[in-house]
């Protein structure tokens, strides 16, 4: 494969100069002049309450206040997979931090001042903060009208309960499998909520002009999906999709938090009431913590059986999700895990229940990993324990059971080509798994932890991507696509794909952030699918351009299209060595023929990709049939952990992580994802800890008290490993890797702690404090 010119090469990021010079424009950086209005949101102080009254009379008198809006101004629901949310709270609030009133003023100061004068009277209702309590028969119902909410056909809400969706997967004979197992281990694991903590908070500016068109500038992973939801939600105003335009500048980090639509609908809706103005809403860091999607928490009960030889016979995995007050997106996290919670193992007998439960906490939603980090913590802890109980090395145990190409998944589909076994071997080698280490310091202990992972893109079966590619007079290219470069380097990778087909260097291909008026459809930049899905669309667009070029050359020069190729920004011919026609000579102005007439014209190309083989039509009781996942990306990780036995403080001395990228289109960027994702994963287990008081109010909504890693918290050594077992339907064999890199982090730490100190911690986070207290308890038991 060494004959690629741009694929598999460490091509320099095309957004580099912009981002290191301060030139990059993020949404908050756009100037709107004196007609800009500022919205300030008054958030609910109650976790569950009826809104008895809202008095805005005093607030409206404040100088520079333009208007004040409440739920009754926007009486409609919205949501991506299930319509259960509101622009501003309607009659009830369901979590602390929910948007209740919007004060709009000419200055942010005036809006804040007026907000203090708005009087809201609540009548508290019983609230439920724990998903297991919310499942009880006498639990208060958050959404009594759940059965009336529109949702996608693959969700199964349970009427008159707090269960928004229940994904069941069943395969084989569980009773027989457990009876035949030599060992059966049953336990429960706990994972709390987490926050994305992108450095840029959510921000959107909307303008509804006098001609009736709505433009929204939004920090978003999903410009087309936002346009669709805005147009749907605001259709009662007569707005149609062509009237709604979403412009997405650079995004300061997404991690799933800027997927779908959350707060952006507030300025969009307000703008329609204030024609001619631009209305801006920017979340403070506190609001960012309290009222955007949070990663869902879970309680996972695992029962697993295995034979003496190490073969896993069965898994019963019951997962109860704390999904929050609104689950329009989060329910699909639950769905994805319900299909895949056997992990990357060959297990013949399976029972999975993945249950999405409403609670009076902030809405749960997409977060890098989409539920997989959460269930993999329990699963990979459990697998390690079974291996130890059988006296089988945990790595060997995984070798025995790890899934291979052609094996059957839990829902009956065939496993795609996968380098999982290679990843296990390479990580074990890199970390020197067989070597025993002991700390020279008697106060410290050293342990090693291993984990494997898989993840499939979770998306509707018809999630599609498209690309326009147009040449300029000098032979440079504008590539128009609508995925977002949220930092992963997507634009550079797309330029590399087009460059490879067309023989034009990536530095001569401009990829701009999308504008839905100009750039063609992309579903969303989520699910780690854009390298694969949009990459296919870009490749098709480039091939379309090449076909147009070759057809023109054949028509003018009578050279067979089969003999032509593109190289060094020119057309060349295998059969006529002296034929050389630079692209810049004809891609806009065509080719002049002998009689002075021109043939050809601007080369404008397009490409579309939709995974037409995907289907969600599985049996609701078993999930058998259908093809809900397009493929899985797999990998393995291991680390060496040093623990201070007195303080519990932990330090990662060395970490290795291997991921099967299919084909790493840009190996440096893949390694960047491994390093960054691994630290984000380690943060969820070692540092981050979302705390709520008894009334459901988040106690630490800032970076002083919610600790994300700093430069001092980086593992001493990180070894990124790229495996390349091609994905047959991926561009040049590529599949996505962005989310996966954080998946193994938490169980690696838990497993290393057991290896070092014989303690098994089954709830996240595993902070130094928790380790020290667990060690103290162990001492007391002696």
């Amino acid at each position: 494969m060494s004959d690629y010119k741009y694929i598999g090469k460490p091509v320099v990021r095309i957004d580099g100069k912009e981002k290191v010079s301060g030139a990059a424009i993020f949404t908050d950086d756009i100037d709107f002049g004196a007609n800009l209005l500022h919205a300030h949101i008054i958030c609910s102080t109650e976790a569950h309450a009826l809104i008895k009254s809202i008095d805005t009379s005093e607030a409206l008198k404040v100088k520079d206040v333009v208007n004040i809006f409440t739920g009754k101004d926007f009486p409609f629901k919205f949501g991506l997979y299930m319509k259960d949310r509101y622009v501003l709270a309607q009659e009830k609030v369901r979590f602390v931090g929910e948007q209740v009133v919007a004060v709009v003023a000419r200055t942010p100061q005036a809006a804040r001042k007026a907000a203090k004068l708005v009087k809201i009277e609540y009548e508290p209702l019983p609230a439920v903060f724990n998903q297991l309590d919310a499942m009880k028969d006498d639990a208060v119902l958050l959404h009594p009208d759940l059965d009336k909410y529109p949702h996608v056909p693959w969700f199964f809400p349970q009427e008159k309960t707090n269960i928004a969706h229940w994904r069941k997967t069943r395969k084989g004979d569980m009773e027989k499998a457990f009876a035949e197992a030599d060992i059966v281990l049953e336990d429960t694991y706990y994972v709390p909520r987490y926050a994305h903590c992108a450095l840029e908070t959510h921000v959107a500016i909307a303008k509804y002009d006098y001609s009736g068109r709505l433009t929204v500038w939004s920090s978003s992973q999903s410009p087309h999906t936002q346009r669709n939801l805005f147009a749907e939600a605001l259709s009662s105003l007569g707005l149609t999709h062509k009237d709604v335009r979403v412009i997405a500048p650079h995004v300061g980090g997404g991690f799933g938090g800027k997927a779908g639509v959350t707060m952006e609908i507030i300025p969009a809706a307000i703008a329609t009431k204030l024609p001619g103005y631009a209305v801006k809403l920017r979340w403070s860091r506190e609001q960012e913590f309290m009222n955007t999607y949070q990663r869902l928490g879970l309680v996972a009960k695992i029962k697993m059986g295995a034979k003496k030889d190490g073969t896993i016979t069965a898994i019963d995995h019951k997962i109860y999700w704390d999904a929050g007050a609104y689950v329009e997106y989060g329910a699909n996290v639950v769905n994805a895990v319900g299909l895949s919670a056997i992990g990357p193992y060959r297990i013949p007998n399976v029972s999975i229940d993945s249950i999405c439960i409403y609670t009076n906490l902030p809405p749960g939603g997409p977060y890098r990993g989409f539920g997989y980090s959460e269930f993999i913590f329990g699963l990979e802890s459990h697998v390690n324990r079974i291996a130890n109980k059988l006296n089988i090395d945990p790595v060997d145990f995984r070798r025995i059971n790890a899934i291979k190409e052609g094996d059957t998944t839990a829902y009956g589909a065939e496993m795609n080509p996968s380098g999982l076994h290679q990843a296990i071997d390479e990580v074990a080698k890199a970390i020197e798994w067989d070597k025993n280490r002991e700390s020279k310091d008697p106060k410290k202990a050293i342990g090693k932890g291993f984990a494997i992972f898989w993840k499939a893109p979770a998306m509707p079966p018809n999630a599609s991507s498209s690309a326009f590619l147009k040449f300029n007079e000098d032979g440079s290219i504008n590539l128009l696509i609508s995925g977002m470069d949220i930092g992963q380097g997507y634009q550079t990778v797309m330029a590399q794909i087009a460059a490879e087909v067309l023989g034009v260097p990536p530095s001569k291909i401009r990829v701009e952030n999308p504008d839905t008026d100009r750039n063609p459809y992309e579903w969303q930049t989520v699910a780690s699918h854009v390298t694969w899905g949009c990459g296919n669309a870009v490749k098709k667009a480039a091939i379309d351009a090449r076909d147009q070029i070759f057809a023109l050359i054949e028509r003018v020069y009578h050279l067979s299209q089969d003999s032509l190729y593109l190289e060094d920004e020119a057309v060349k011919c295998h059969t006529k060595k002296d034929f050389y026609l630079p692209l810049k000579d004809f891609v806009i102005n065509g080719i002049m023929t002998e009689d002075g007439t021109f043939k050809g014209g601007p080369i404008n190309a397009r490409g579309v990709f939709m995974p037409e083989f995907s289907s969600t039509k599985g049996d609701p009781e078993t999930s058998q049939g259908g093809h809900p996942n397009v493929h899985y990306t797999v990998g393995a990780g291991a680390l060496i952990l040093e623990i201070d036995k007195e303080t519990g403080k932990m330090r990662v001395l060395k970490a290795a992580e291997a991921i099967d990228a299919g084909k790493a289109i840009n190996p440096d960027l893949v390694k960047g994802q491994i390093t960054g994702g691994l630290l984000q994963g380690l943060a969820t287990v070692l540092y981050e800890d979302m705390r709520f008081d008894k009334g459901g109010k988040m106690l630490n909504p800032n970076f002083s008290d919610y600790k994300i890693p700093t430069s001092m918290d980086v593992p001493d050594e990180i070894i990124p490993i790229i495996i390349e077992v091609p994905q047959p339907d991926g561009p040049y064999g590529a599949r996505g890797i962005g989310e996966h890199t954080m998946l193994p982090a938490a169980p690696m730490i838990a497993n290393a702690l057991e290896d070092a100190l014989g303690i098994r911690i089954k709830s996240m986070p595993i902070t130094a404090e928790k380790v020290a207290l667990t060690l103290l308890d162990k001492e007391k038991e002696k």
Partner: protein
Amino acid sequence: MKEITFILNNEKRSVQVEPSETLLEVLRDKMGLKSPKCGCDRGDCGACVVLLNGKSVRSCLVLAIETAGMEIMTLEGISAKNLNALQEAFIAFNSFQCGYCAPGIIITVTELLTKNPKPDLEEIKEVLSGNLCRCTGYKPIFDAILDVTGKEVK
């Protein structure tokens, strides 16, 4: 409102400010300089770091009115001519992903390298500990700094 004058990116500039306005607000909203970013508005994240009389400060914690007569440098001022070696190294080592933290980090490192052109890894980590980056895992940032100071990158 009070008029203040300062040297901003090597130019003498005057501006009307409210006593309550932060330097970050004035730079972004009144001077049109957008490289300092607001990530937390309470000094935790470092995205708004600028140089004030050559020292790095969190511009969200400085009142603009206090900066009268001082020299202020933002990333725009550093980038005015060509990208410098540090910025080139940030590109070469993919030391940013989303890029939101990059201006604050480059300013912080600029101050470090002025004081100590050959910092070791521990010093680099210490100096950067007030600049949060959620994307890169920091290692690529260390690598760029080590490389630009002539140290071997492992």
